[in-house]
């Protein structure tokens, strides 16, 4: 799931303060699950902005709405009028949604209300942790289902570095050394032999280093 974090109010305010009609558009998918970008949060943000406007003496109309996903054309079907009324859109979607809208509505400025932070999971309710770096070439089969790319401070692929102390990472003292976790799990699975195998050089060509990646569902026409 994509995890995002709402930007500071001052930053958002500075983006929209020049506009008179702003649409706050929530995205009721990933970023809603982490309580940052859903319709409800759009409403709360609108309230805060309204108060900011009032305090600064700015006359501004703020409209709140929300759609299922801001990365699909079809969900915008009923949005045409709403967007047209606004001189700017403040999107509470992840970076994908913001760009998607920016491309879709060329003439209307679209601002991000969120910083898109990472791809992660809810370890506990309300606590999100990064789990994947979308490297495009998954090696989890060999690492007991635990990703050293995303979760090792140094992205090491062949065992821990020398800085591990008490099973913790030397970069982040509160972070478990991912290689310790991998070894423990391999041991539990009875597959410690996998650890002995050396990783060949990882094929980083599928990582984003080569520019934006594309994907087409088989049989789909462009």
């Amino acid at each position: 799931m994509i995890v995002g974090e709402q930007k500071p109010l001052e930053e958002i305010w500075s983006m929209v303060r020049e506009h008179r009609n702003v649409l706050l558009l929530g995205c009721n998918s990933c970023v809603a699950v982490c309580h940052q970008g859903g319709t409800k949060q759009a409403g709360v943000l609108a309230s805060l902005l309204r108060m900011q406007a009032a305090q600064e003496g700015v006359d501004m109309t703020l409209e709140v709405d929300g759609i299922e996903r801001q990365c699909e054309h079809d969900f915008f079907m009923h949005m045409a009028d709403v967007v047209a009324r606004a001189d700017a859109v403040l999107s509470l979607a992840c970076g994908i949604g913001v760009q998607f809208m920016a491309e879709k509505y060329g003439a209307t400025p679209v601002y991000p209300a969120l910083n898109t932070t990472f791809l992660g999971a809810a370890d506990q309710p309300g606590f999100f942790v990064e789990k994947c770096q979308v490297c495009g070439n998954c090696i989890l089969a060999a690492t007991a289902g635990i990703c050293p790319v995303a979760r090792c401070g140094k992205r090491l692929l062949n065992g821990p570095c020398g800085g591990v102390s008490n099973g913790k990472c030397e970069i982040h003292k509160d972070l478990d050394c991912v290689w310790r976790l991998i070894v423990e799990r391999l041991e539990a699975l009875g597959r410690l032999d996998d650890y002995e195998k050396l990783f060949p050089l990882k094929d980083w060509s599928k990582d984003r280093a080569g520019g934006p990646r594309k994907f087409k569902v088989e049989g789909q026409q462009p």
Partner: protein
Amino acid sequence: MTETASAPDAVGEETVAAAEKKAGPSSWDARILAFACHFCAFAAADLAGIMRLSYSPNVRIIRLPCTGTLDHSYVLRAFERGVDGVFVAG
């Protein structure tokens, strides 16, 4: 869900409020909106009446079935529309 901020009013009000604050609490007429749980705080407000306890009349109470129902938006809306304080009791 469209709302226009009444900017001139708000400004005036802020200034007034600020001026009044400076002048001292006696002349500042704070307006408080309370959200009260049906089972406890609302009951307490009733009890205050039953016991004929007098308190400032500048409080209005909205009853909720439980303060669990208190949505962020209620508080924000109240502030947006100019109440000076929100009191949540439950």
